[in-house]
C-alpha cells in the first residue's frame, strides 16, 4: 500500500478530534453540528439545479443520551481516516461488521451505522465515497462513443477502456468513479431506465448511428451511476437525455432523483445529481401521439403524482411537469418503454427516438 500525502479530509478529521479533546480538557461538553436532512430544510433553485440543504443545523452535545452515538461517530471517523491513509475502501455492510469489534459500542443493526455515516457525510460536507465508504451496489452499464481512463489496480498505470468495443456486452460502472477520466466524440448521453431497452439499442448499434453514449440505470439510478453521468457530462459538456417508463415512478423516483437528487440526501446532492438532464420520454402526450398501449394507474401511482404536485419543490418550480403529472392523473394510465414494440420491435429506435431527438428543445425540464 502506498501512503500518500495527507489529504484535506484527514486534516478535517484530525481537527474534529482535536476539538473534542480540547473541549473535554476544558471540562466542557464537546459538541458536533449536523445540517438537518429533511424536506423542510431543503430548497430547489433551478439555476443551481439540485436540491440544496438549508441552514438549519442540529447540534449533538455529549450527554448520557448521546454518548453512545458520539463514541460510534468518532470511531467511524477514525475508521475513515485509516481507510484514506491506506487507500482502501469499505462497503457500508463491512463498516457495520467492523463495529462488531467495538464491544458495547457496536451497532446492532445496519440502519444505525448508515445513519451515523450519513451524519458524518453531512458534518464534513463530503460524500460517503470520499470517506471511503462505498455502497453494496454498483452503478449501471455504459456503452457508446466513450473512452474511459482508469488505473490498473495492479500497476497503478492508466488504462483506456473503449466503450465501443464491447460487442453485445457493456462497461459496468464501478462504485467509485471520482478518479475516472474520459475521452469522447459523442454529442449526447442517453440515459435509459430498463436494461431491456438498453440492450435493444446496443444490439442495433444506436450509439454509433446517433453518435452518443448509452447508460442503463436499471431502475432508480445509484449514487455511483448519477455521479458517473454527472462527471462525464460536466467534463465533456455533454447534454443528458433521460428515457424512462411513462409513470410517476419513472418521472419522480427515477428522473427527478437523477436530475436534482433527493430530499434525504440533500447534503450531498451537489455531487450526486445531473442538473443538466432533460426528459425525453415517455411523456403523457406520447401516449396519444404514438397510440400506445397503457396500464391503469395504480393507487400508489396516483398518490405519488399527487404528493409530487403538492410537496415536491422540483415539480413546484416547473410548470411543464405539473402539466404532465396532471395530464397523467386525468388520463388515468401509465405507459412503459416497451409499449412501442406494438408497432414493431425497432419502432423505438427507428422512429420514436429519432423523431424525439430532432427537437430536444421540446423535452421536459
Amino acid at each position, binding site marked *: 500500500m502506498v501512503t500518500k500525502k495527507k489529504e484535506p479530509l484527514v486534516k478535517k478529521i484530525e481537527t*474534529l478530534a482535536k476539538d*473534542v479533546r480540547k473541549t473535554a480538557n476544558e471540562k466542557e461538553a464537546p459538541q458536533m453540528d449536523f445540517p438537518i436532512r429533511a*424536506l423542510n430544510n431543503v430548497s430547489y433553485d433551478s439555476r443551481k439545479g439540485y436540491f440544496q440543504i438549508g441552514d438549519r443545523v442540529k447540534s449533538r452535545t455529549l450527554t*448520557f443520551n*448521546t454518548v453512545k452515538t458520539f463514541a460510534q461517530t468518532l470511531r467511524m471517523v477514525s475508521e475513515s481516516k485509516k481507510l484514506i491513509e491506506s487507500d482502501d475502501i469499505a462497503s457500508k455492510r463491512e463498516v457495520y461488521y467492523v463495529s462488531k469489534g467495538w464491544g458495547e459500542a457496536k451497532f446492532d443493526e445496519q440502519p444505525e451505522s448508515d445513519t451515523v455515516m450519513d451524519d458524518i457525510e453531512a458534518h464534513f460536507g463530503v460524500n460517503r465515497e470520499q470517506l471511503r465508504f462505498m455502497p453494496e451496489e454498483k452503478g449501471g452499464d455504459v456503452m457508446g462513443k466513450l473512452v474511459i481512463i482508469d488505473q490498473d489496480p495492479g500497476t497503478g498505470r492508466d488504462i483506456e477502456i473503449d466503450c465501443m468495443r464491447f460487442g453485445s456486452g457493456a462497461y459496468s460502472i464501478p462504485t467509485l468513479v471520482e478518479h475516472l477520466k474520459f475521452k469522447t466524440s459523442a454529442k449526447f448521453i442517453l440515459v435509459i431506465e430498463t436494461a431491456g431497452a438498453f440492450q435493444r439499442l446496443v444490439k442495433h448499434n444506436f450509439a454509433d448511428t446517433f453518435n452518443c453514449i448509452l447508460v442503463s440505470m436499471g431502475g432508480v439510478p445509484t449514487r455511483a451511476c448519477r455521479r458517473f453521468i454527472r462527471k462525464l457530462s460536466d467534463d465533456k459538456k455533454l447534454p443528458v437525455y433521460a428515457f424512462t417508463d411513462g409513470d410517476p415512478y419513472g418521472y419522480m423516483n427515477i428522473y427527478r432523483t437523477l436530475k436534482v437528487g433527493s*430530499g434525504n440526501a440533500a447534503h450531498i446532492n451537489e455531487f450526486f445529481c445531473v442538473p443538466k438532464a432533460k426528459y425525453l420520454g415517455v411523456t403523457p402526450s406520447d401516449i396519444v401521439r404514438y397510440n400506445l398501449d397503457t396500464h391503469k394507474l395504480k393507487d400508489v401511482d396516483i398518490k405519488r403524482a399527487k404528493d409530487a404536485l403538492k410537496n415536491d419543490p422540483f415539480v413546484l418550480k416547473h410548470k411543464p411537469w405539473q402539466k404532465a403529472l396532471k395530464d397523467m392523473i386525468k388520463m388515468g394510465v401509465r405507459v412503459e418503454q416497451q409499449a412501442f414494440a406494438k408497432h414493431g420491435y425497432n419502432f423505438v429506435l427507428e422512429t420514436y427516438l429519432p423523431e424525439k431527438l430532432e427537437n430536444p428543445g421540446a423535452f421536459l425540464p
Partner: protein
Amino acid sequence: MSEAVIEKQESLFDVSQNGASQEPLSKANGKLKRTTPKNAQKLAAGHREISVSEFFTKNRHLLGFDNPRKALLTTVKEAVDNSLDACEEGSIPPKISVRIEVISETRLKVTIADNGPGIVKSQIPKIFAKLLYGSKFHSLKQSRGQQGIGISAAGMYGQLTTGKPTIITSKPSSRKPAHYYELNIDTKRNNPEIVKEEDVDWDFAKTGTEVTIELEARYQKGKQSVDRYMEATALANPHAEFIYTPPDGEEIHYERETKELPPEAVEIKPHPYGVELGMLLKMIKETKERNLGLFLRREFSRVSEKVAEEISKAAGFEPKSRPSRVANGGVEALYKAINETKIMAPPTTCISPIGEELILKSLTQKIKADFTVSVSRPPSVYRGNPFLVEAGIAWGGELPQDDLVSLYRFANRVPLLYQQSGCSITGAVVGTDWRNYGLSQSRGALPAGPAVVFVHIASVWVPFTSESKEAIADYDEISKEVRLALQECGRKLSRHIKRRKRQADERRKRGYIEKYLPHIGIALQEILDISEKEKEKVIGNLAHVLEESRGGAAAVGADEVLPLEDDELAKEDES
C-alpha cells in the same frame, strides 16, 4: 347447547302440569288437520292466569341460569349477596363461608353460611321458596340485592335439575337452637312446600344462616369463575371475611381489613328529574296529599316550598290545587314544568362508598404488588340519580409484566364478571391515555403492564346495559367520573413509575460512562496518536462533564434520530 337443553326440558315440565285441553291419546297421534274453528267464546275459555314461578321455570335464563357454568356462579352470587346484605343490616361484620362439593360429573353441591342475624322461623319458607318475595325491591338506596327472586330461583333450579330440596339452617338467636328446613317450591302456585323441618345445633356462628343447594352445574376456572368472583368480592368488601372451599379442595381464606362496617346507605325519595310522564300521572292519581304543593314536597326529594310553588305556577296551577284537578289533564304541563325548573341535586346519603383507605388496604393485602394507589371521588348525579366512583391500581411485584392489566369492575360492591368489552368502565379505561402514566397501551385496548385496575361505581340505581347486569351503560356523567378517578390514580402511579424509572436510568447512565467513553478515547487516540495517559485524562474529563450534566440530560438529547419528513423523497437514496 346446554342453555337450550334447559329450555326444552322446562317446556315439557310445564305441560305435564296442565290439566287443560288434554285430548285422548289416539288423537295426538293422528294426521294433521284443522279442528273446528274457535269463536271468541271458545277462545276465551282457554285463557287463565300463569304463576310467576311457572313463568320463570320456563324462562330460567332470564335469571342467570343459562348454562351449567353460569348457574353455579349465579347460585353462589345470590347467596353471598344475601349474606352480605343480611350481616350489614344486622350490623355484624360479615364472615361468610362458601363451599362447593362435587356430587357427580354434572352435579355440584353449594353451601353458603353466614354470621348474619338469622331469619325468624316463619319467614324462612317464603324467603327461600317463593319468587318475588323480598325486602329490598321497593327501597331507593344502594343495595346489592336483586328483587326477591335470586335465592329462590337458585333453589328452584336445583330442584328442577336434581330433584333435591333446598336445605336451610338459620339461627336467629344465640340462645336457642337453629331452625332446619328442607324446602321445595310448588311452582304451580309459587308457594313453599316444606319437605322437612326440625330444630338442630349449628355452630358456624352465634347467629346466622346456611343454605345448601344441589344443582346441575360445572365448575371451571377463569375470568368468569367462582374463584374470580370470590377474589373480587373480597377485594370490594374489605369489612368481610370469606372462607372459600372450591371443589378441588384447598381452602382459601380472605381476611377482613377492618372490623368497621361501611356507613349504611340511607333511603331517599325520588328526584323530580328522574320521573317518567306515566309514573308522574300514576303518582298524582294515587297520592294521599291534599294539594299539589305538598305532593311535590313530600313525595320527591329536594322540592322546597319555594320550588314547589315555582313548579306549580309554571304548570299553570297553584300549590294549593287539588291533585285530582292536576291529574285530570294537567300532568303533561306539570311534567314539563318540573324539567324546566331548577332543582337542587338529590342527597347523596343514599350511597355508601368503600373509601380510599380501605381500597388501598384491600389491594395491598390481597394483590401481590409493589405499589398501590386509590381514589374515591365525591358523589355526582346522572339523571337525578346520585352515584360515586372509586378506583384503585396495584402495580408491579409479582404481577405479569407484559400482559394487559387485569380490570376488576364493581357495581355497588358486586363484581361484574361478564361483558367486559361492552361496559362503559372498560370504555373509560381504554379511553384514558395510560402512556402518560408510564404504562404501554395499544390504540383501543386496555393498557399493558404489571397492574390491577379496580373500579367501583356505587349508586342508588346503576344503569346496566342489559338484564344480565354485567355491564354499565355509557352515561357521559359516569364515564367522566370514572375517567377522572383513573386519571387521579394514573398521576399517582406515574409519579411512582417515574421514580422507579429514574433510579433505573441513573444506574443505566452510570454504566454508559464505562461502556462508551473508552471508545471515544480509542478514537481520539487513533486519530491524534496521543499517549495512553493523555487518553485516560480525556476520558476522565468527559466522565466529569457527563456526571455534571446528569440533571439536564433528558431534555438535551431528545431529538437523536434525524427526522425524515417526506417518505417519498426519503426513500430514493438508498444505495
